[in-house]
Structure formats: C-alpha cells, structure tokens
C-alpha cells in the first residue's frame, strides 16, 4: 500500500515538475476525448436509434412520424433482407476460413529458417496495405473473361467469375482472402514465435510425429492469438461493402451492408435503414460475444 502511495506521489510530482498536473491532463486530453466521443459517436447512435422507430425520410421535408416497432417488424419479415443476411453469413464463413487457412499456413512456412525471410514477410504484407477500391478494380481486371490473367493462367477460357451468380460471391471472397490473409499470417507469426522451443525439443525426444506436435503443441498455444485474428476478420467481413460493390452487382453478392447503403442513400428510407443498422449491430455484437467467450475458454485451457 505504501509503495502504491509512493508511486502515485512520484508520478504526481514528476508530472508537476514537467508543468502538467493531473487536472491539466484531464482538461487537456481526457475531457476533449470524451466530448468528441459523445458528440460524434454516442449522440448519433442514440439519435439514429430514435429514427429507427420513425418513418423519417431524409429526402423529404416531412417531419418524422413515430411508427413504433414497424420498421423492425417489416425488416425481419422481408425475405430479401433474410437473403442478404444469408449471403453475408456465407461470405463471412468462406472468407474468414480461407484467410485462416492461407494466413496460418503461410505463417507456418515463414516460421522456419529460410533465406530472405524478412523481405518475404514484408512483401506478403503488401496486399493489406492497399486500398479496397484499388484492390477491387485490380481484381476486376484479373477476373475479366476476355483478357484477365486468371483465366489465361488456369486455362479456363472465357469462364465468367463475376457475371456468374453461382460463382460471384466466391470470387469476391477469394479477393478478400488474398487481401487479408497477411493479417492472419502476421498475428499467427507472433503466436508461433512465442511457442517455447523446449516443447518441440521434448516432443522430438519423445519421437512425436509432426501431426501430434502440431495438434498438441503448436495449435493450442497459437489458438488464443488466432482467435483474436478470427474475431477481427469476422467483424470486418460482416461489414464488407467496398469489394462486393466494386467487383460485381449480382443479387447473390448483395451483402447486408450494400442493402443498407441502398436503403439509406438511394431509397432515402432513413428510419428503416436506421432500424436495419441496429439489427446488424446487434448481430455483430452477438457473434463477437460468442467468440470472446470461446476465446476465454481457449485461454483457460
């Protein structure tokens, strides 16, 4: 206790000696940040919640009329919206699974002693440094059935990636996998490098096979950090908009955020789109909560 008081006093005196008291720090940094958050995050959040119970249209000058839960009821009974959610779920599963497999696999390869390892790692990180719009346009050219390099390399003739409703979603997911696997790779590499070497040495002495070593040592120890990557990527994939919007306009690729955009900014159904945004928010929160609970269980093991 005494040590804690001393430390606190020391900090205070150090801050005071630099001319920054706690009160000043609070006034200069903490209060503006809180105000900023309230004005730009909390207030719009509450304001839009209010709108979600009205029939407000931003394009008209008519006042918002309270309609209770009508927007939520209609949205949850709209087969098109459920279809958008189903497409989003499919996209999230394919995209995140692909990123974990490719990202973790690449990390496993890079976790060995190979020449130019640093340069290779940096080069592999490049896709996630590009803007979504650029990646979308770039892959649109790659997928082109007439002169795209993908069909040329794979000998697929004029196979249609983006115009084929059955394939378009996978084409978008492949692009997302290409772009974001490096993120999973980076986190996995951090996890892999933290696995104590002596565990592998002990396993080698016990003549454990690679399969056993992977599933009993590597994966359990990397799992917590891999779960964090999965949580981030799931949330991002759930919100995906740019790639799907730029690459194709198939109904089979209309993820929920595209529907939300159209409802809010093309149809100007402001109240209804606020309700949809809340439904999406609740879903993301629910999924994230499930993941976090699972992550805690993994950590406890």
């Amino acid at each position, binding site marked *: 206790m005494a040590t804690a008081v001393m430390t606190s006093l020391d900090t205070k005196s150090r801050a005071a000696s630099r001319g920054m008291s706690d009160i000043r720090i609070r006034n200069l940094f903490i209060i503006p940040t809180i105000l900023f958050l309230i004005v730009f995050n909390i207030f719009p959040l509450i304001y839009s919640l209010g709108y979600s119970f009205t029939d407000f249209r931003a394009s008209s000058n008519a006042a918002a009329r309270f309609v209770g839960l009508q927007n939520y009821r209609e949205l949850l009974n709209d087969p098109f919206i459920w279809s958008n959610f189903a497409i989003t779920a499919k996209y999230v599963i394919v995209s995140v699974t692909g990123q974990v497999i490719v990202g973790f696999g690449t990390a496993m390869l890079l976790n060995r002693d190979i020449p130019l390892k640093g340069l290779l790692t940096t080069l592999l990180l490049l896709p996630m440094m590009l803007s979504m719009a650029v990646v979308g346009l770039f892959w649109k050219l790659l997928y082109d059935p007439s002169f795209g390099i993908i069909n040329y390399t794979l000998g697929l003739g004029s196979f249609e990636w983006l115009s084929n409703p059955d394939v378009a979603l996978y084409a978008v997911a492949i692009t997302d996998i290409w772009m974001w696997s490096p993120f999973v790779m980076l986190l996995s590499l951090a996890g892999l490098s933290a696995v104590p070497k002596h565990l592998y040495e002990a396993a080698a002495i016990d003549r454990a096979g690679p399969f056993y070593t992977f599933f009993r040592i590597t994966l359990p120890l990397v799992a917590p950090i891999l779960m964090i990557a999965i949580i981030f990527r799931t949330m991002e994939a759930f919100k995906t908009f740019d790639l799907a919007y730029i690459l194709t*306009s198939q109904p089979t690729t209309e993820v929920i955020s595209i529907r939300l955009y159209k409802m809010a900014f*093309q149809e100007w159904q402001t109240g209804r789109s606020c309700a949809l945004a809340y439904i999406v928010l609740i879903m993301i929160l629910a999924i994230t909560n499930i993941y976090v609970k699972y992550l805690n269980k993994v950590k406890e093991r």
Partner: protein
Amino acid sequence: MRKTMTGLVAGVGLMWACGTSAQAQELTIFWAEWDPANYLQELANEYEAETGVKVTVETTPWADFQTKAFTEFNAKGSAYDLVVGDSQWIGAASEAGHYVDLTEFFTKHNLTQVMAPATVKYYSEYPANSKKYWSIPAEGDAVGWSYRKDWFEDPKEMEAFKAKYGYDLAPPKTWAEMRDIAEFFHRPDQKRYGIAIYTDNSYDGLVMGVENAIFSFGGELGDYQNYKVDGIINSEKNVKALELYRELYGFTPPGWAKSFFVENNQAITENLAAMSMNYFAFFPALVNEASNPNAKVTGFFANPAGPNGEQFAALGGQGISIISYSKNQEEAMKFLEWFIKDETQKRWAELGGYTASAKVLESPEFQNATPYNKAFYETMFKVKDFWATPEYAELLIQMNQRIYPFVTAGQGTAKEALDALAADWNATFKKYGRNK
C-alpha cells in the same frame, strides 16, 4: 470620434453591400461528370462574357450524383444554385420543396410549345398532366444504337446473312431483326459478339435497357395517373419484351452482367460487338477518331420498332432546376431566360449539348451536324420514362431485383419476374398511399 465612427459604419456597410452584390454575380450549377457538363461550362462562359455573371458547372461522378445532390438538398444547403437533375428525381425533389416552382416561367415563355413535347412531359412536369413545371428541359437524351458499318456492309457477311435469314443485312428496323443480326454476328471463337446491351443494376442501366424493349413492344410500366400496375407491368407484351431482352443477353460479350455506358461504347471501340445500345450523349466519343479507332466505320440507328410497329425509346437526359435554398434565385432565373433563347439553344447544340428545343431539333442544320443527330431527332419525339414519383428509387431497386436474375442468369421466367414486380410495386404504392 463621431466622424470616425460614422466613417467606419459607412465603410462596413459599403463592404457588406459590395459583398452581397459580388455574391449575386456568381452561379453554381451542379451536374454529373460527363461531356455535356463540359459543353454547358463552355456555354456558361459565353454567358459570363455577355453579362459578367460567372457560372461554374460543378460536377461529380455519376455514381455519386444522386447521393450528393440529395444530401445537399436535405441539408438545405446553398452550395448550388441550379441542378441538372435526373428526370426521375422530379417527384421527390418537388414534393420535398427542393425545387423552385417554374410554372409561371414556363407559361410566360410558352415552353410547352418551344420544347419537344416528350421532354416537357418527362423532364419538367410533375405530377403527370398537372401543368405544374419544376425544370427547363436542358440536356435531351434517349437511348439509341451504334453499329459496325464495316461488318454490316461486308459482301460476304451480307450474302451469308441473306442465305440464313432470307432478308438483307442492314440496320434493324424491328427488335426481331435485331435479334437475328445479334445471333448472326455472335462468334465467341473469333472473340466477336452480337450485341452490347445495358445490364448494370446498380442504378437505372438495366431498367432503361429493358424499357426500350417494353415500350417498343407496346407495353407500359403502369398507369402513371392512378398507379395501377396489375396487368400492365406484367402484361403479355412486357413478358415478350423481357424474354427478347434475355435472349439478346445471350449474344453479348462474356462477363457482360455489369455493363453500362462506358462498356457499351467500348464494345464498339474494341471490336467486341456488332451493335451497341447507349445514350446519344455518349456518341460523340464514337465519332471521334482519337477515342474510337473505328470511328469511320461506326453507324447509328434509332431504337427499332416492336412486333406491332410501335417504336419508342427510354428517355435519358435531364432538366435544369433552381434549388429552393439558393441565395441567388433571381440571378438563376435570368440565366434560365438566357438559356431558353433560340440562339442559345442553337449554340448549345453546336457545342455538343442536346437541345430539347423543337425548332432546333427540326432544323436540317442540326440533323445533319453529326451522323447520329437524325436518329436523335426521331427518337426525342417518341420517348417514355420511368416513374417520377418520390419513391422512384424503391421502385427502381425492386425492378432491378426482380428482372436482373432472369436477364443475366435465366433464373425463373419473365412472367414470374414481372408478376413478382407487380406485387412489389403494388405494396410500395400502398405503403405511400398512392393506390387506395
């Protein structure tokens, strides 16, 4: 001291007065980013030379145009004085009070007679037949067709076509002929395809494309007076038209499921297709050798007739409106007075803009100015448009949702797609209390 104060107040007053007057000497017109906006800027420069009023045409890409315009309207912003807005916006913008009522201006200048009737009906009047006007027809436009004259006039091709179909190969006069020609030239092994049509479903591309077929087949989207759609949007004529459009999609280049005006011009410039649908406003690029290596062998024709000889086309183009929140409404009105003058309209056409002035359109001078102006003139007197009600965007998205899977993927039947669309539109009109 008193003198100093009086002088100061007088000085501030003078500055304020000058400031206001200087502000009124400038106008900003908002439009989408395309060639006609550049032509309008050139025209506006001439207005500045004449009157000293500086007019700036501010543009944004087509994809953002609607969102950006309505965001500004909704905020009651005065950044723009005039807007060259899409014809479908007129219901939403007038009912919400974003546009200034130009009925008096219209009557005073007898614009119902001066401008081509269809342009007045679709760019300016809302509600339909109400004699209330919200914009001045500015950029007339409609969908037409370009084609490869060299492919059509090749003796070998002509002979082969006649042998196969029993009539001469020439620009199609009917949609049935167009289908035959598209099929004839569709040769994927030679990377040559029959036709390029609109398929993009993110705004009104696909819908406009299908409208060309529907209207020429004698069909309609509904009764604009009473919002009745049952038996109209899903009529037998419309089903046949949609089926033919789907058939034509089979003769397009690969990957043609998200194609609009850019791709459809590329179909001609890159030797992809024999015929290509596009707005007339995009044709200047096709007669320019710098942008089209095939410029010398590119021909044009108007939208062909349907099975019963009816010949209509989907309307493009826009009217120019004064924004209610503009602080320079009087000055904007003066600009419009100048814009509708015969000599200005003539000059507008010379610069490349598509005048809606009936007199200019009818003049041989205009019709012979480009290889496509005659087709444009013929088309502008038989155009029809989409719903212009405030909820047009919902109707547009519903139409896209229903017909796109059928046209591009052959899912379901044309009848099923149009029946479902009729149900969607009925529900939307009911929601907004239009069809009681």
